[in-house]
Each structure stands twice: as structure tokens, then as C-alpha cells.
């Protein structure tokens, strides 16, 4: 009898979770758009952190650390668990100002792939300064004047060595008068492209969408039966590798583990999809990623929950990502739940809104129902 009651309560909670998710159907898109507009690169996460704080309910106490990580605690049956997402995206920053007012560029962290810097050539960019955004373009040589040799050197050989941002001034003094300073983040303008088939594309869209899912869940969370606190954290400096021997974990994740010491960790991340080599498939639902091809309680709980809720999920065995690395192995149990992203780590990351909604529904139901207890 007790078992039946518990099961019925569980179903009611799950249904309530879905209802809450359905009610928030428009919200996760709205929140995604709101976060998408805010630049956030490693070491320059403060504007996105402030935006997230502003979107969270006032009655939730916000925890922060010295690097900019933001976290809240949600009471309910899912805890104790750490649910961790990144607050930072890959990007560039101002490394210098030339006497004639052009900005030179560097990266705060290693690029995700070898072509990452090459996307800058000939593009509009935004330099986020203490005085506000400054619009600029990354210089490119005029086609008419390029010899084959110059083309090879300047176009095919483009690198940060030849990346100069033109902000429409003629001296370093004028550049500084606009508010430009060393370390200011350099990002692409937040222009969202709406594609057919319910897909959105834009720079850093995957990371912003994942962050938005957790904001939307936290904003709509209603305390359930006690089970311990779930800590929802948006970690700063996750693209920066912690130093040390062996594998290099994300600094923000390593700090999160040290701070909260969770027995279980749920990493909410992005994963490259649609490369034509099978799983993950965009539109196929959130991706459950484990390092070993062995069932884990957390993974099984998510598979069951997804089946109960009829949410499609995909499973993938892959090397542990830097974000999950600090939690790999006992005493922690870790599962990565990832949003499939086409053209990941390019200026046009494509997100299928069905995946976005499914991720929101799945995580929302997990935090409301507490699967895996």
C-alpha cells in the first residue's frame, strides 16, 4: 500500500513537473534570448552573472564565489546533488592597443579547435568595456589588392598575429576614451538567426541555452518533499584548465567540487551533434553522456524518468569532459546531460528548440520528482 501511495505521489509530482514545464514552454525560449544577448567569456562572466541573478526569484539566496560563479539551493527530493553548467563561453579579449588605435586580440583559454580564431577574419565584433559596448570590425585585406602570396599569408594564414580590431578611431588615446582597456572581452554581435524546423542559430548559443534551462527551472521551482538541497550552479572560468598533474579539469568545475563536495553531480553541458556520424542527432533529445559503457544509478534513473515522461533521450559513451572531470570516480557519481548543438564552437551554433524544451522538461521533472533516490 505504502509503495502504491509513493508511486502515485511520484506520478502526481511528475505530472506537476510536466505541467510546470509546459507552463514554462515559452519561458525557456524567452530566457534563452535574454541570456543570448549578454556577452560572457572566460574571466569576463560578470554581466551574464548579473543577468542570471536578476532573473532568479528574490526569495532564493544567491551564492557567489570570488571568480563569478553563481549558485542557488533548491529544496526538494532531488538533493543532495550539484547541478552544474558553464557561465562562460570561448572567446577573445583585448590584448593591446596600437598607436594608431587598432586593438590586438588574445584568448583567455585554449581554443576548442584549430579553426576557432580564423572565424574572426572580416567580422563585426563587440568589445564590452566599462563604459558599455564598443562596436568594431576585424580587419581584412581588400580583395582587389591581394596577390596570391599576400592571400596565402593574410587569409589562409590568418591568426591572432594578424587580427586587428578597427573601432573607428585613429589613436590609442581615442580608443581609451571610448572605454577600451586590456582584457575587455571581444565577442560576435548577438544576432539570432531563426531557421526552419524550429531551430535557432547564433554565437555561443549552446552555452547560453543550457544556462537558460537552469535559470528557467530555478525561477519556476516550487519546494517539494524534503530530500536535501540541490545546488544549481553556473560556474565561471570553465574553459580555463586547472593546473596540475594528468588530465586538466575545468577550473570552475574543480572549484565547485571543492566548495560543495557533492555526493552526486549532474553536469549540464553541450555536445557536438549532426556531424553525420550517428549519435548525437540534433532533435533527438538530450544526450546522456558517461565515460564508461556501464549503467550507473543516475543514468538509469534518467532513462526511466525520460521514458515515463515520453521525453526522447540519447545515450553516448565518451571521454569525460573537462567540466565533468573533477567529479569522475568515487565518492562522486556523475552524469552529463547535454544539449545537442550543430556546428558547435562556431559563430553559428544551431540549437533545435525541441531539444531545448526536452532538456528543460527532463531536468525540471528530475528536480521536482527526485529520480534516483
Amino acid at each position, binding site marked *: 500500500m505504502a509503495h502504491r501511495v509513493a508511486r502515485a505521489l511520484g506520478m502526481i509530482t511528475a505530472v506537476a513537473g510536466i505541467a510546470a514545464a509546459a507552463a514554462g514552454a515559452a519561458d525557456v525560449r524567452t530566457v534563452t534570448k535574454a541570456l543570448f544577448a549578454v556577452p560572457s567569456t572566460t574571466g569576463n562572466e560578470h554581466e551574464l552573472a548579473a543577468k542570471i541573478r536578476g532573473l532568479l526569484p528574490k526569495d532564493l539566496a544567491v551564492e557567489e564565489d570570488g571568480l563569478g560563479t553563481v549558485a542557488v539551493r533548491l529544496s526538494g527530493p532531488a538533493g543532495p546533488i550539484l547541478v552544474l553548467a558553464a557561465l562562460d563561453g570561448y572567446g577573445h579579449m583585448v590584448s593591446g592597443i596600437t598607436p594608431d588605435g587598432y586593438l590586438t586580440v588574445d584568448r583567455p583559454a585554449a581554443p*576548442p579547435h*584549430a579553426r576557432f580564431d580564423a572565424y574572426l577574419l572580416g567580422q563585426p565584433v563587440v568589445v564590452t568595456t566599462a563604459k558599455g559596448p564598443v562596436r568594431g570590425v576585424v580587419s581584412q585585406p*581588400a580583395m582587389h*589588392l591581394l596577390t596570391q602570396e599576400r592571400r596565402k599569408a593574410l587569409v589562409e594564414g590568418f591568426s591572432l598575429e594578424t587580427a586587428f580590431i578597427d573601432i573607428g578611431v585613429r589613436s590609442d588615446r581615442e580608443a581609451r576614451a571610448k572605454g577600451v582597456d586590456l582584457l575587455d572581452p571581444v565577442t560576435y554581435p548577438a544576432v539570432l538567426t531563426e531557421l526552419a524546423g524550429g531551430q535557432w542559430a547564433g554565437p555561443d548559443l549552446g552555452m547560453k541555452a543550457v544556462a537558460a534551462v537552469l535559470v528557467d527551472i530555478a525561477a519556476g521551482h516550487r519546494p517539494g518533499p524534503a530530500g536535501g538541497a540541490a545546488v544549481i550552479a553556473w560556474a565561471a572560468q570553465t574553459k580555463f584548465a586547472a593546473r596540475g598533474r594528468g588530465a586538466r579539469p575545468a577550473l570552475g568545475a574543480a572549484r565547485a567540487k571543492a566548495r560543495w563536495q557533492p555526493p552526486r553531480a549532474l553536469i549540464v553541458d553541450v555536445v557536438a551533434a549532426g556531424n553525420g556520424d550517428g549519435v548525437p542527432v540534433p532533435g533527438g533529445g538530450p544526450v546522456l553522456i558517461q565515460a564508461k559503457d556501464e549503467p550507473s544509478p543516475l543514468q538509469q534513473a534518467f532513462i526511466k524518468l525520460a521514458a515515463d515522461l515520453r521525453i526522447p533521450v540519447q545515450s553516448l559513451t565518451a571521454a569525460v569532459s573537462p567540466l565533468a572531470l573533477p567529479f569522475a570516480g568515487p565518492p562522486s557519481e556523475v552524469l552529463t546531460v547535454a544539449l545537442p548543438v550543430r556546428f558547435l564552437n562556431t559563430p553559428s551554433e544551431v540549437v533545435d528548440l525541441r531539444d531545448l524544451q526536452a532538456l528543460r522538461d527532463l531536468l525540471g521533472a528530475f528536480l521536482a520528482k527526485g529520480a534516483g533516490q
Partner: protein
Amino acid sequence: MNKRITIFLLALAVSAASAGAQSRAWDILREFVLIPGVSGHEGPAADYVQKMLPAGLKTERDAMHNVWFTVGSGKPHILFVAHVDELGWTVDRITPEGRLRVKPGGGILPQTVEARPVLVHTGRGPVAGIVAPRPGYDARPAQGETPEAPFTAESFDIYLGVGTEAEARALGVAEGDSVTAKKTITDFAPGLMAARAVDDRAGCAALLDAVLRLKPDAVKGKTVTFAWDVQEEIGLFGAAELAKTLKPDYVFAVDTFVSTDSPLESKRLAFLPVGKGAVLRAIDSSNVTPKSEIRRVLALAEKRKIPVQVGNSRGGNDGSVFLAGGAVDIPLSWPGSYAHSLIEKIDRRDLEALADLILAIVAEWK
């Protein structure tokens, strides 16, 4: 006074009364750069030109979408011409996976649109797409691996968000549709911007502004033709069509001066700074302007206190196709950094100086 002049003067009188003498070139440019007009697909751009011209003005438009009108009579016959077409692509075929393969339409670096949004201009309106990054873009090449194939317009494809050819066609996409970059305007400061298609919408805007500010008595004693032509970027074809019927004594082609005012380029030629005035192209790849004509233009500019720079650069101009017919080609410009890119840069002062120079030539050229 013949009927053609009467209609023109009436139209201009109405136009001048409503617009006053303030230059509108900058506002026209900002609006015009956003209108698609890939070479061979200039219909909407030609529509815009005709819409902006004074009401009642009788313009001509041919099957290619060249638009022009002529006023006045007598010698000399002066032609001003700017091209409305822009760089872009044309849909060549739709793959079974619903992606688009394209043909290039002029010189734009393919690398600068890799993983960037574009618009496909279909019969049912624009459809957004993304130029797919090259396969394996995120792989780390192994040492000694064969260098990857170059990324070219012929090799890239456009992702629309669909997975089959039928779904792509259901969006209205078809072979032959034009494709442009999804355009944004970068405002560095008031009066200084960068955008795709400044080449040659700035020339078009300067011509339109000059027409809108033209005083009715300025065209006495000469014949003046204003033309907005097509297919310049793929071989001066629109100008060549006009040259079959128009036989000017002087042609002032109004187009970009490819400037080396940028941090990457050698300053040994074409270094005319942005913001220092309109430009007279002394030599480019298609024309050598006679020194005597350069001196005449400079004297006129000095008299009217219009800042003008003289330089040599590369690239052709529409005026060159009128040379064989007996015209003297005097190309006018503004200094344009980053020509043929998504970020063509222009200063409002240069554009307005260019429009002023056109007005001065109309009024005083003999």
C-alpha cells in the same frame, strides 16, 4: 523648353521644396545596403531607386533592370553611373539532404562566410540559412596529414534547418534564387559605419541624393544622364548594355575607391584615408583619367570647398565601357576600407562630399 525638361523641372521643384538642401545620402545608404541585389537579381534594388526618385520623373528601365533618366539638351552629354548590384551567390542545386550548393557571384572571401548566416531570397520571401563549416572543422589535424581542401563557394553548402530536398523546396527555395550574407550595420560612431554592400550602394545613394538636391536651373545648356546599372560585379554587363544607346562625352562612374587605410595592407598605393573627402580615381585597372580632367575636377572642388583626394588603386569601373564610344571616363569615389567584405567601411563626410561634387559637376561642367 522641351517636354522632357519641363517634367524634370516640375519634379525637381516638388522634390526640392520637400527635401530642402540637406544631404540625405547617409540615410539613403543605410536603408539601401539592406536591400538584396546580387548580380542578375537586381529587381528590388532597381525598385528602390525608382521609388526614391522624385515623383513624376520619367525614368527608363530595361529588361536587365538598368534604371536611368536624361535631362537637358545640348553638349556636353554627361553620364553619372553607379551600380546597384552586390556580391553574393546563386542557388545551383538542392542536395537530397536539403542543403544548398551555390555558384559564386563576384569576389568575396568564402572564409568570411563560413559558419555565418545568409538569406536565400526566394519567390516567397527570404529564408535564413547557415553556411556550413567545413567538414571536420573541429578535428585536430594529425601531424603529416594532407592539407585540407580550400574552402570555396563551389565547395560549401548552406544549411536551412531541414533534412530533405522536399522540405527545402517547401520553404520556397529553388535553383536560381539569390543568396546574400545576413547583413548588419556596424556603427563605430555617428557618421562612421561598416556593412556589406556599401560597394556600390554608397555610389547609388550619392547619385540619388544629388538628384533630390539638384536645382532646376543646374542642367541648362547640357545633357545629363543619371544611371543606376546592374551586373557590374560580374563583368560590367549592365554598363555595356547602356553603352549601346548612351553616347556620353564624359562619364563619371561612381564606385568604391579600394583604399589601403587598414592595418594589414601596404601603403605603397591606394592609401587615401577614410574621412578625408571624396575621391577621384586617377588610375585603376580599367582606366587612366587624363591629367587635364583631374585638374578640372580639383579646381571645381576647390572653388566649392569640397574635400577631394586623388589616388590610384585597383578594380574596374563602369565608365570604362564607354571609352571605346568616345567618352572620357572620370571615376568618382569615396575611400573605402575592406572592399568586397562583410565590413565595408565608409565615413558620412566622404559620402556627402561625393554628392556635393556630383552636384558641382552637373552645374559647372562644360
